[in-house]
């Protein structure tokens, strides 16, 4: 719809599509800065935005004109609205709208987002009980999200006829096959979850103390909300990515660094947890010994993404070692293997700009 609107206004052209993609990628930086500043202050905003600014997949997808940057914008706004709604419930209306826009912008996840919406509702129910169904803001948010899903499904039915109500018929057809073959599907879901856990830990490892503290107070609404966002993204991404790995024509590689684009949305809540205690106004030399969050922020933004490629590269080498296994026998795309063999800056740069060969 975004590309269609731009084309309707300015005509067709590769340059226009690239321009829209570039605008969306700048939008990610602006929205990430603004929302994290509103939630946790300027220092957190600067640290979060710096890490996302040099995140390789977000840069790569500008050139590929993939929808990840657009989805990231709406996902960040959804997290922001949900966290704000803990103090003022009216923000849930915005949360419902943004969640609906995430649904529209991520065709390959489609109705998996409805399951995520239900999980979010269960989360609120666990704190508010039946009051959640009497609150105008929550009912409104459910209504807005459901209206967007229903409107889009109806549009598909009118345009393409029954039974094409789904966002992405391509994925739905493979999902049906996956459901009918659980013995082949479930092991790949588990393998994909393992890969995504390693991908999240590749950045999360820099914020070990902060993550452990947040886990320690998981019963607090804010903490559980942030962790729920991380876990839900990981689960949805694993179910979707495993479908593509197993049943898509030609198949996608299971342990491929390119698959980080399915789970990278979880980095935003992860970075919020990691950077919210950052205080850039206070010089490092005046801080107590052992309080090294400033340096870790710098490390993760400057070197973390390179090291992330290297850590995931170890996985890829394991995959190459077991290439004869029927579970992992798909060919590795050239786009994914070369860039992750070392953790150097040039390697990271080649990955960001598709200069891998």
């Amino acid at each position: 719809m975004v590309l269609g609107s731009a084309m309707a206004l300015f005509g067709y052209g590769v340059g226009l599509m690239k321009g829209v993609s570039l605008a969306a990628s700048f939008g990610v930086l602006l929205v990430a800065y603004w929302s994290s500043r509103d939630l946790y202050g300027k220092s957190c905003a600067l640290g979060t935005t710096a890490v996302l600014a040099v995140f390789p997949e977000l840069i790569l997808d500008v050139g590929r004109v993939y929808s990840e940057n657009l989805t990231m914008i709406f996902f960040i706004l959804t997290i922001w609205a949900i966290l704000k709604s803990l103090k003022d419930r009216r923000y849930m209306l915005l949360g419902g709208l943004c969640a609906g826009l995430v649904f529209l912008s991520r065709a390959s996840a489609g109705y998996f987002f409805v399951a995520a919406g239900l999980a979010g509702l269960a989360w609120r129910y666990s704190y508010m009980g039946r009051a959640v169904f009497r609150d105008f803001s929550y009912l409104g948010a459910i209504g807005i999200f459901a209206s967007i899903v229903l409107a889009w499904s109806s549009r598909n039915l009118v345009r393409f006829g029954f039974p094409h109500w789904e966002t992405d018929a391509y994925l739905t057809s493979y999902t049906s096959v996956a459901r009918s073959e659980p013995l082949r599907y479930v092991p790949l879901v588990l393998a994909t979850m393992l890969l995504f856990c390693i991908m999240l830990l590749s950045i999360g490892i820099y914020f070990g103390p902060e993550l452990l503290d947040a886990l320690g107070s998981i019963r607090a609404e804010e903490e559980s909300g942030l962790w729920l966002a991380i876990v839900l993204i990981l689960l949805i991404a694993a179910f979707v990515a495993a479908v593509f790995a197993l049943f898509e024509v030609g198949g996608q590689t299971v342990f491929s660094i390119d698959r980080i684009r399915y789970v990278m949305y979880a980095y935003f809540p992860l970075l919020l947890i990691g950077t919210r205690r950052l205080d850039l106004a206070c010089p490092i030399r005046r801080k107590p010994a052992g309080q090294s969050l400033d340096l870790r922020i710098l490390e993760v933004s400057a070197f973390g993404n390179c090291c992330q490629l290297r850590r995931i590269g170890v996985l890829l080498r394991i995959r190459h070692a077991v290439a004869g296994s029927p579970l992992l026998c798909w060919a590795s795309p050239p786009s994914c293997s070369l860039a992750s063999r070392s953790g150097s800056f040039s390697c990271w740069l080649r990955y960001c700009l598709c200069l891998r060969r």
Partner: protein
Amino acid sequence: MRLPAVSRYLLSLPALLHVTILIGATLRIVSAGLISIGFDGGYYIVMGASFA
């Protein structure tokens, strides 16, 4: 000895983070400028045209 304000800023962590964001923004522009590799233009032209 007290350094000038500009020097103090350039040596500070916020300055390094600002530079990191600037590098990221520059790479996005370069990435958008690269047309050849990894761009599935045909798919997006058809999809965009159908919506337009």
